[in-house]
């Protein structure tokens, strides 16, 4: 069974190495940068930077669902009829929109470390504990993203007329089904531009995780810059890679917006 998985994994990585846009057979660095500092393999930094690119992109993609889910529930809480729920949700957004992202990251990274250490110490394990930087970054960025996301979703919720809920009631739909079948599709359409902006901010915030040692674009280019003493070139490459990420996501978002606007065409 494990052999099957290993075979599957090697096939996957083989496919990945073929379509790799940086160091694959048709990669940018393979074609345009052999013999330079950006070459792939042991002679250059191309493959390390490509790895950083993958880490950055996957951190942002892994954070997105966490942030969206928490943000959705915070937005629901903000329009609850119960005052305690509203207050609790408002405290959440006030705190996490007011703190610098870097400080949130440090608090999560070191705070979790201390917390886990104390927990394990009470269980009888004495030893160094290290929190995964990817995990800490995911939590910190997800929390910040969710605070902003809840505001975007809240204003989108307010843009949906009350009659939509009543129509759901009139059709005899359960509250959950009203939300899923009637409200959510409209919510996505209204909130998409705002969420697009938040996604761009999230992409840029991932650079902060390099400070706690995650091997993302900025970390890898920083190491390369320190070793080769060619800081301007490598940080320039980092900026270009971030710009590429921004461009790809703006293309994706304009496609999504066009797709969600299809329903409005007939009117």
């Amino acid at each position, binding site marked *: 069974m494990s052999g099957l998985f290993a075979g599957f994994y090697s096939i996957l990585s083989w496919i990945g190495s073929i379509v790799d846009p940086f160091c694959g057979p048709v990669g940018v660095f393979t074609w345009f940068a052999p013999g330079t500092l950006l070459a792939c393999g042991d002679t250059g930094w191309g493959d390390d930077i490509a790895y950083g690119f993958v880490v950055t992109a996957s951190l942002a993609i892994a954070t997105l669902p966490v942030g969206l889910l928490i943000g959705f529930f915070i937005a629901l*809480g903000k329009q*609850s*009829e*119960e*005052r*305690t*729920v*509203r*207050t*609790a*949700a408002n*405290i959440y957004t*006030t*705190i996490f*929109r*007011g*703190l*610098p*992202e*870097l*400080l949130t990251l*440090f*608090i999560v990274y*070191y*705070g979790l470390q*201390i917390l886990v250490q104390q927990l394990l110490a009470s269980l009888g394990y004495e030893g160094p504990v290290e929190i995964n930087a990817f995990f800490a970054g995911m939590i910190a960025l997800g929390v910040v993203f969710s605070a902003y996301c809840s505001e975007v979703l809240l204003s989108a919720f307010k843009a949906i007329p009350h009659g939509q809920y009543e129509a759901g009631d009139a059709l005899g739909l359960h509250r959950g089904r009203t939300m899923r079948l009637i409200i959510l599709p409209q919510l996505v359409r209204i909130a998409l531009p705002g969420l697009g902006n938040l996604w*761009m901010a999230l992409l*840029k*915030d*991932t*650079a*902060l995780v*390099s*400070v706690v040692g995650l091997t993302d674009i*900025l970390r890898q280019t*920083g190491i390369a*810059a320190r070793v080769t*003493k*060619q*800081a*301007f070139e490598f*940080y*320039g490459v*980092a*900026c270009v890679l*971030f*710009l590429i990420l*921004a*461009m790809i996501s703006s293309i994706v978002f304009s496609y999504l917006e066009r797709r969600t606007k299809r329903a409005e065409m007939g009117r």
Partner: protein
Amino acid sequence: MSVVATMIPPQAPPPVPPKPYTLSRFVGSVALGIWLALGVGIFLTVVGGWDPEKFARYGPRFLNGLGVTLMLVGLSIVMGAILSLPIAFARMSKNRFLSWFAYGYVYFFRGTPLLAQLFLIYYGLGSFRPQLEAVGLWWFFRDAWNCAIFAFTLNTAAYQAEILRGAIESVPRGQREGADALGLPQRVAFWKIILPQAMIVALRPYGNEIILMIKGSAIVAIVTVFDLMGETRYAFSRTFDFQMYIWAAILYLIMVEILRNIWSLLEARLTRHLKR
């Protein structure tokens, strides 16, 4: 025919039906309870771990760092505002080269992380030391503080240019035509008619930009500027006391909240003629 001879005596109102204990009420009390417990816990750790010696040693440094942060943000916002004017006009100009240049500038600074821009300027320009020395600019880029101000100014200028452009373009065409009809020169029309109306639209985004800059300024700690975050990291690396981060968090929250409240007062005051 019957006549009511006796009135029904007044009766007590029916009892208020008891509020059902719903799920959301439960969730609300639990959530508030968690916040309360966190607040009390933080308070207790601060009180329990209170060390006058630490306070005497790091308190002034924290205040100093706060000053550095405020100065950094203030300077870069003001200089960015000045720089954003030509960029916004270039972006709106009919000259294709100018508008593309401004678009590229804005796209670059809005599309890349501030941290990467700061590294590009602080470490990147450091590799051009001979050239910079030849031009006589090396003294400026040698210092992390100058580099931070430079990077932040360029960055916020891009954002402010977009805010300004959006606000100016949001002023209806009729206003400009009205000014033309009154025979006002272009310059007077811009300063007295277009800009005041644009500023009201731009007020809220400007406030957000200042808050973003306060939060973003924390990253200068990475390039060895001792702002509030830098002092916090210094204190933490000396004492390994997690309270330092809590202090910094409280200071940042106070700063942002004060600014937010000032801004909403300002907005209420400036838009009072628009209220009905």
